[in-house]
């Protein structure tokens, strides 16, 4: 079988890459290890409630905003129906000890207004912070269609300053710093490690607007499937990739599947974790320096998660998320804290037939080291000691949610829970990191181009995390094949 391109991995970056290449005239095969595309986007159901695992809400999906324009170019818009999260406050930040609450509204102007109202003495700090976020966000190619393609642009996100350093230089108000750092939970890197540039690249989209998709991640997965079908992309489900075939002169010539079949191709976009990609590449494909760099990359935090169903509707999570901070500095070192000192992110789980919150997902960041004792076990066959450990963690999570959010606790019951090992095994994340490799100061993540001609990398680890980051990574990778100018021109026509 011969294709112009093979795309490895049918997560959001792989789906995007396959659509981009097919839309621009190439024959494409998309290879996915799981039995269906976008396994993480599809989530799972318990007791009649659907729990989204890959998509909860997105920034920048309003009319003409970056994600909306991407969806239009990819041909997904007509297949999706998005709805606004509460514009007056889509994310509530609650500090547990004193009951202080701040609500993030949609739009920079309202955000400025709300922040100044909550922190009247900090107007100049807030203005400088928001100016910085906006200017950094607007400098990212593709997110801003007017931004020049600067080959050194990505390095600014490696050099720093960190978010923490930037906030320290602006204000001494620890609560304000915590509020502005809370969204670190959306990308799994603490404020003292992430660069201000990278933080802005992510939160900048939420500051524009926050929206959900009717039907959640499943609708997005279904839309991708329908469009792939329309463009004639061949999808090979249930097919793991054993190795990449590279000719002696360093040219990619195909992809060998676990079942022994070889897909010949002119090029491949590989979207798996960078360490998994190295395992697929023949020994001499990369220099020792590159291999060491990839092997040494630090992953984003993992998490313990609680999935609960409720007898009563949960208006507090209708078009809103709730973030709980047990102390002002609890976002610092996220993951590396006991549950009782860890921040908590709560988001709605919806009924099968409608978008009414009928349960919630509680996410407590944690390091994968917490489940290291059982790392050799596999899903469905974990030892008794792991089950007891997980039960203990689940009880503590339920207790904490009840303590922090009495309005959620009354009519809810735990339907399931997960640990960093679950994230590892269901998310194909070698260390259980929620968002792939960390984007942090001093860490050089791989770029889409590689030393192997015809081999391109995409995914959260390469460009940026989340739905927007994964789609952006597809554009960044395929721009090397199709021409960035061509893609940007196409996007401009959709704006």
């Amino acid at each position, binding site marked *: 079988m011969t294709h112009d391109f093979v795309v490895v991995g049918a997560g959001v970056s792989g789906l995007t890459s396959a659509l981009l290449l097919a839309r621009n005239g190439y024959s494409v095969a998309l290879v996915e290890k799981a039995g269906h595309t976008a396994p993480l986007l599809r989530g799972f159901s318990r007791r009649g409630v659907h729990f989204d695992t890959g998509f909860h809400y997105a920034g920048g999906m309003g009319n003409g905003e970056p994600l909306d324009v991407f969806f239009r170019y990819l041909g997904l818009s007509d297949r999706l129906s998005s709805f606004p999260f509460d514009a007056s406050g889509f994310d509530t930040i609650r500090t547990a000890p004193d009951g202080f609450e701040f609500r993030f509204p949609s739009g920079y102007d309202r955000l400025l207004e709300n922040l100044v109202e909550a922190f009247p003495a900090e107007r100049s700090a807030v203005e400088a912070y928001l100016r910085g976020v906006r200017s950094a966000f607007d400098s990212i190619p593709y997110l801003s269609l007017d931004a020049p393609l600067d080959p050194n642009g990505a390095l600014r996100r490696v050099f720093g300053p960190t978010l923490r350093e930037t906030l320290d230089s602006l204000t001494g108000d620890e609560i304000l710093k915590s509020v502005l750092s809370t969204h670190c939970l959306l990308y799994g890197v603490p404020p003292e490690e992430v660069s201000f540039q990278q933080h802005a690249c992510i939160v900048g989209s939420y500051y524009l607007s926050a929206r959900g998709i009717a039907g959640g991640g499943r609708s997005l997965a279904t839309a991708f499937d329908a469009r792939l079908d329309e463009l004639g992309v061949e999808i090979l489900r249930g097919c793991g990739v054993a190795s990449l075939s590279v000719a002696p002169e360093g040219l990619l010539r195909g992809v060998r599947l676990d079942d022994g079949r070889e897909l010949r191709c002119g090029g491949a976009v590989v979207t798996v974790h960078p360490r998994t990609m190295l395992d697929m590449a023949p020994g001499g494909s990369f*220099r*020792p*320096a590159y291999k060491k760099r990839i092997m040494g990359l630090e992953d984003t935090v993992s998490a313990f998660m609680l999935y609960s169903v409720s007898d009563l509707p949960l208006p507090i999570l209708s078009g809103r998320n709730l973030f709980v901070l047990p102390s002002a500095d609890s976002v610092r070192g996220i993951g590396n804290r006991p549950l009782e000192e860890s921040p908590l992110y709560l988001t709605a789980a919806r009924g099968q037939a409608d978008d009414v919150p009928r349960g919630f997902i509680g996410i407590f960041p944690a390091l994968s080291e917490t489940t290291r004792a059982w790392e050799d076990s596999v899903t469905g066959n974990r030892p008794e000691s792991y089950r007891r450990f997980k039960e203990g963690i689940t009880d503590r999570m339920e207790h904490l949610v009840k303590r922090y959010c009495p309005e959620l606790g009354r009519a809810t019951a735990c339907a399931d829970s997960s640990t960093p090992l679950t994230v590892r095994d269901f998310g194909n994340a070698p260390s259980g990191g929620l968002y792939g490799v960390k984007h942090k100061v001093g860490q*050089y993540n791989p770029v889409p181009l*590689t*030393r192997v001609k015809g081999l391109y990398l995409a995914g959260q680890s390469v460009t940026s995390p989340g739905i927007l980051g994964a789609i952006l990574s597809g554009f960044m990778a395929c721009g090397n094949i199709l021409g960035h100018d061509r893609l940007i021109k196409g996007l401009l026509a959709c704006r």
Partner: protein
Amino acid sequence: MTNQEIIERIDRSIAEEFEIDPEGMTPEKTLFQDLGLDSLDIVDLVIVLETAFRFKIREDEGIRKIRTLGDIHAFVLQKKNELESIPR
């Protein structure tokens, strides 16, 4: 470490990490044309030097002017001198 030891360390690290024959590594050799590195290797070169000598290069303007192996020698020696002249 003497200057000669530093130069030997640089050459050894680059030879190992980029699989270059140490025999051909003379100061006048250009990185791209003679030693076969390309722009994708620059990040790894920075990391190799940072790891070998435990300093941060990152935004150092001097790195952009490097063309030959001798330029790397001079860059690292200067960087070491700068760091050693800082009073502790």
